């Protein structure tokens, strides 16, 4: 069932036109020794009805647990209109807008998206999106090496409080080009990256410093002081931010005296389902002075032959299809579909809606924190201002607790013990506007039961 429309008559006519006797003859330039046998490892075809049933059964096996996990991917309500429009064929089945005249819908949507991201982050320009937040940070680090011409060291200060997967991903992607990442400690009582722990780098050649707000623990960093420290020491400042939080929190363009140089983050909270980790999108914004060092697609507004406004891909001289080996990145696509969903999401919720979503998430997490910390054997790892996550320290290993919660239909949090053995047993939990008083009470009760059972065992 390969979605092939040809009738036997079509095939005959087409072969006659070509002047061959069989389809097989069209492959006569391929050496016979290379020809594949039957693909016995591929199962027989299924009709749409059959695959629909199979997928429904598999989905049912996964169930729909009550989710309290964050750690880089956040559950928010998504207005029905977002994906109803995003999956329209004209959006879903179009490609990169190389033919601008035939892609004004996609191009204008990107322009609107760039405007929204620039405003959310209070930066001057945004690209059309990157693959995801983690790889976006890697691209930002590579970009900082190109943009910070005074620095020769390719040294990046990377706080230990930054999402561990982002750190690993940056190492895997940027490490091949000789970037060196230096881990900056966090204050064990506050969970914040302390400016004091940067003292050892005074006078060194630092290319960039990364600041995540809120950091992986959900804790709010002193972003003004960290930003100013970076600039005072000749480093560029890279912000990693949660886009929902920006409705409430000071945007990276306003951190410190001068604002950051590059802002990146995971765009998933803006209308993209959790979906086992993807597809998501990364956003990236910067100052106009660095725009030519920015990777990824960029759309600009211009005029057509009749002097009417229209949209087109611009600054393409940075990109791989023009510059080849000298491009800013090998990135070819953006995450067009997800960027579209986010643009529609932001249009529908608007500035007030986003602020309410952020406030409700923060308030629900405060409620969750209070309820969880009231459970015997649970305490907050840090007493600091936070956004919509909290790191809990337990008195028993986390894995068994999560297993017990799973058996009660709860996805109970992220076990951070492996990433932070110094804080183990540590459980990172999150609540958003999707959680109710009842949900939080159910979580606290289940946690108490799980811990009680673990202690008894």
């Amino acid at each position, binding site marked *: 069932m390969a979605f092939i429309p040809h009738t036997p008559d079509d095939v005959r006519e087409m072969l006659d036109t070509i002047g061959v006797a069989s389809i097989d003859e069209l492959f006569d330039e391929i050496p016979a020794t*290379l020809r594949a046998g039957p693909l016995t490892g591929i199962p027989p075809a299924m009709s749409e009805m059959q695959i629909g049933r199979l997928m429904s059964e598999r989905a049912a096996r996964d169930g729909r647990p009550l989710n309290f996990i964050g750690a880089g991917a956040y559950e928010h309500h998504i207005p029905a209109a977002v994906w109803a429009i995003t999956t329209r064929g004209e959006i879903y089945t179009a490609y990169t807008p190389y033919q601008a005249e035939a892609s004004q819908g996609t191009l204008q949507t990107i322009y609107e998206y760039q405007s929204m991201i620039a405003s959310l982050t209070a930066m001057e320009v945004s690209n059309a999106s990157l693959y995801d937040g983690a790889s976006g940070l890697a691209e930002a680090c590579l970009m900082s090496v190109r943009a910070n011409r005074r620095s020769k060291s390719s040294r990046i200060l990377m706080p230990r409080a930054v999402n561990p997967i982002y750190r690993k991903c940056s190492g895997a992607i940027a490490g091949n*080009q000789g970037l060196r990442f230096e881990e900056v400690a966090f204050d064990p009582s506050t969970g914040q990256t302390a400016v004091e722990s940067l003292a050892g780098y005074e006078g060194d050649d630092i290319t960039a410093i990364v600041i995540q707000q809120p950091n992986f623990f959900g804790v709010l960093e002193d972003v003004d002081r960290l930003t100013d420290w970076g600039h005072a020491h000749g480093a560029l400042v890279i912000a990693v931010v949660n886009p929902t939080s920006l409705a409430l929190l000071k945007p990276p363009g306003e951190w410190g005296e001068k604002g950051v140089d590059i802002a990146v983050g995971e765009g998933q909270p803006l209308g993209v389902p959790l979906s086992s980790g993807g*597809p998501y999108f990364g956003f990236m914004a910067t100052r106009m002075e660095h725009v030519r060092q920015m990777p990824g697609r960029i759309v600009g507004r211009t005029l057509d032959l009749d002097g009417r406004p229209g949209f087109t891909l611009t600054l393409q001289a940075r990109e791989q299809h023009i510059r080849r080996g000298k491009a800013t990145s090998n990135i070819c696509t953006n995450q067009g579909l997800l960027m579209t969903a986010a643009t529609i999401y932001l249009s529908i919720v608007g500035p007030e809606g986003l602020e309410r979503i952020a406030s409700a998430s923060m308030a629900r997490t405060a409620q969750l924190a209070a309820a969880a910390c009231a459970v015997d054997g649970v305490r907050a790892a840090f007493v600091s201002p936070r956004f919509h996550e909290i790191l809990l320290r337990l008195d028993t290993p986390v894995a068994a607790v999560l297993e017990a919660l799973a058996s009660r239909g709860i996805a109970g949090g992220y076990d951070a013990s492996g990433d932070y053995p110094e804080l183990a047993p540590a459980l990172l939990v999150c609540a958003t506007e999707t959680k109710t008083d009842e949900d939080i009470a159910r979580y606290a009760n289940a946690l108490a039961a799980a811990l009680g059972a673990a202690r008894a065992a």
Partner: protein
Amino acid sequence: MNPTPASAIAAPREPTIFDLSRSGRRAEAQMPQAMAADVPPALRRRRRPLLPEVSELQAVRHYTRLSQLNFSIDTHFYPLGSCTMKYNPRGCNQYAMLPEFLGRHPLAPVVQGQGYLQCMYELQEMLKEVTGMQGVSLTPMAGAQGEFAGVAMIRAYHHARGDLDRTEIIVPEAAHGTNPATATMCGMKVIEIPCNADGDCDIESLRKVVGPRTAGIMLTNPSTLGVFERHIAELRALVHDAGGLLYYDGANLNAILGKVRPGDMGFDVIHMNLHKTFSTPHGGGGPGAGAVGVGARLLPFLPIPVVGCDAKGYRYLDERDLPQSIGRLSGFMGNSGVLLRAYIYMRMVGREGMQRIGEYATLNANYLLARFRHEGFEPAYPTRRATHEFILTMKHSARDLGVTAMDFAKRLLDFGYHAPTTYFPLLVPECLLIEPTETEAKEALDGFVAAMVAIRKESVEDAALLKGAPHTLPVRRLDDVRAAKHLDLTWKPAA
């Protein structure tokens, strides 16, 4: 003028969403309960971001109208060479978007993801089978990231053997721009080699550059010139004998699906564009999915996570299972929702259908090529069979009439056809790279040929008509120079 306005797009232009915004307007049904948040004053945002304030209907109407300004596979024949714009079955979308799949958190315990993980495990197995490779990782998020993973694995392999001098990646000049860009991102030096007049790699040039500094070669086969690289066995021997590895760029896998397996051709590593061959949607430029497959030598270096299976069920393999892995390339495991679509597509197509894809993609391309040849158009490689795509060169129109490949491309839009890929590969003058895919019916191909014939007639009678095209779209040709010179990248309120 002979356009067909009914099939082209003639929608009115649309203001920006910001132009529709009115202070204080909001989508009431999307407002959560107001709750107080305790943000320290020094960290609080002072001014609201400039987001549109519109009703839900206004947003729906605006983005619906914008969508109508696009060409897409669902609305138009889209013969964009090297992009494999085939039908994206709606069923793949519907069943990948079941609420359980959409709602699953990537870090949820694997006991709450056995259904999803089983699909991913089976997808890995099926991709191994169609490519003839030994292992697959699904994590790369696009073709370019798959390429990155492939070259990074080649680098890691040489390093693990203490072979630190292999810093050169050989790339044919016809390659996609991502190939040299990727090699650079992996800290490699790019060595380009030419192709000969028949479109094959120039073996003598390869012989001169291959040696103890060779880390590997990146090949697309069939190549971007739309022909099968006939000397593949000789190329393989040359590179392997010199200690280098062979990288297969799977951009054109659709051409040989079920007919030839890259593993059987001797490739050590391959990336697959699931958004091409396995029909996941292009989404206006992403998400893609660039799964990588490897032969035995590169198995330990696969990017993580990979899905494994043991007596307890399916689980992610990570650093502990694959300590020599090149590491993580994405936040979780790539574009998982895209991977689900590819899985559903492969199960629907099945064993027998898989082998027909390459056949009918090749039939359609060769039929189109034959039709164009009969009509007097000029193939770039006249002695060769087309694979799933082929190149026409418009160099004579350009020389004699001043009408370029781009003019043909733009005029095609008026006739309701998306343009083929233009000016790629760079080494063929005035080229149109045409890929019809297997999902197009003969009538669509005949209609496309008729449009090209009509446009050629226009080019002789009234070249200005082509130079000014398109005439029936929401905008006419755009001033790209102005766009780059007077950068207008974000909407700003009128002063």
